[in-house]
């Protein structure tokens, strides 16, 4: 999966989680940009991404995420590692 395909898929997940068709993610998008991005929705994004991309995140990886760019890099590295 290319980086841009990952962004597209993740964008779909965000639109579903926040029920907002207008969401358009950039690498800089962070929790502070989306008012409803609380801990509850944060976990929902992680779990939905695990299902969508067929990967598992661990606690230390999840702790370090600052924005969507970080998250996409994490997903890409997991996908590359197979």
């Amino acid at each position, binding site marked *: 999966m290319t980086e841009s395909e990952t962004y597209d898929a993740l964008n779909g997940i965000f639109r579903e989680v926040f029920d907002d068709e207008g969401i358009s993610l950039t690498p800089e998008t962070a929790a502070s940009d989306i008012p409803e991005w609380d801990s509850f929705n944060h976990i929902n994004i992680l*779990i939905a991404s695990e299902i969508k991309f067929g990967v598992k995140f661990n606690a230390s990886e999840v702790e370090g995420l600052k924005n969507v760019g970080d998250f996409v890099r994490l997903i890409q590295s997991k996908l590359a590692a197979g």
Partner: protein
Amino acid sequence: MGLPELYWLPHAEDFDARIRDLKQSKASSSDLVAGLVNLANRRLDFLQTTRLDRIFQKRLAEIEQSDAAPARIKLALLASGTVDHLLPAIRVAGLRRRLSVECYVAPYGQYAQELLNPASELHGFAPDAVLMSVDVAAAVPQLPLELDRGQVEAEIATRIAELRELWRLAREDLRAIVIQQTVLNRALPIFGQFESRVPAASGALVRRFNLALTEAAAADNALLLDLDWCAGQIGINRLGDEMLWHHAKQEVSPAMAPLVGDLLGRQLAAIRGLSQKCLVLDLDNTLWGGVLGDDGLEGIVLGQGSALGEAYLAFQRYAKRLSERGIVLAVSSKNDARTVEEAFQRHPEMALGLSDFAAMEVNWEDKPSALQRIAESLNLGLNALVFFDDNPAERTLMRETLPDVAVPEVPDSPEHYARCLADAGYFEAVSFTADDQRRTQQYVANRERKKLEAKATDMKGFLSGLDMEARIGPFSQLDLARITQLINKTNQFNLTTRRYNETETEAMTTDPSVATVCTRLKDRFGDNGIISVAIARLDESADEPVMEIDSWLMSCRVLGRKVENVVLDELVRQARDRGAVALRGEYIPTARNELVRQHYAELGFAPLTTPEQSNGHSRWVMQLDDYRPQNLEFFKVVRADD
């Protein structure tokens, strides 16, 4: 094993479009409810579930005002971990059963304080049911490994006693049904498979703890949300994992919320009497392989000798077992009636016989009409029926024509039929009574009574021919489960449709100002069990004390037998005992109880209001000085005294 996907529900192909429609919907609130219930009955993942719940909650006020308003139940969640992420799935699972669940989550880890403090938000919320969920670390102590079995059991008994004290508070102070979650055995073994041989090892401890919990629940009439069992079905690491626990204190993964929500939703629906009661089965390729009309008695596949034949037999045996616990079986099949009768009588491998079915619709008519006739003949609502048919076209037609009937997606191959039915959880129980075990016999006896009725030339002759014996008196402790069941599931002969849980009915038995009447009916065809319940409360605020009839209901199986006259005698007797000078009754109309609109008029009560004044709601009174007992000659009345 596909439990997490709610695989018995059909897919929601056009989910996004339908959500968009519902969001913008200007439709009437009853169409809105229908749309929401329809989507809730689709196979939704956790994000779809959350989106559906958002619309439901947003339009809730409007929905609850409408004619199509779902029944309501208030659930308090008291947990040692995070449960907020389960709420959308719990509410959607309720919606799936036309139940609106209002949730309150006690502050994280504060359940004991909230229960103990009468001024807490929990007490203000006044829940109907309380879910108590305790994670393994909070429930089970770490013990020194050298403790022997007796010492370990004493430790567990102490913990269980503490929990039971909390249950007691929920039951007595909140008047709520207790649902206790079993403890998820996340303890990691330190002895490997030898773990369960060491009583104080955590793995062994949790097993014993859950067993003790089950016994305590039976003693205290608490329900169990059996997550430990669920973990055994789907795998504990699928249900949740350590990352979620450490990161968010979630024992259950959001991805599993639809499943856990459904397990709980079933119980809440069962508390409200909304579990399904009747399984309607197709025949060809459902109870046996092949087409009876084409393949003949010798050609159908059933029984030992082939894998498929054994699979169909196993499904028949499962259905038979369901009927033994009180689920009514019926048949809807496009077939020739005589060929089918012959097959049941003559095929040597049939586990089910004709007498196991309370209704048979074997003809060439459409199946939705057949199910309507089955519901009518058994005095059940359409929402009490499950339709199990291998033919996808019949299932689709049924869902479109009768959306209240539950229609599971039937697996492709018969070896999965029974598990599908079990996993779908249509028949969730909150009690198991002697009457449940006799149910099919009772329906069969009813068919015999109808034959007698057809023969008798006058009503009195028919009633005398029945040799009826009514056993009547206040609620007894032993009967509370059945009484509560009847209060929650009777819709037609029900004057006020007030629902009470077992905690509340138990409280009535010790309140001297409350008169309770429970009636059993026997006749020459068999024992009908408990068939009528009435509750009246003494109102002393007036100049002279009056008994207000709060609830009066009866099973429709015994309609037209004059049981209500016998019940009235008993109500009058108990009212006089309490010094009342009059009985007052009320009729609250619902979509299902038109049958009893004239109930009080027919018994000789005088109207206090006219229906025109108050939307069909009417109030009635009877003075007691001029009341004469009815002394019906065709009834033998036996008083079951306090």
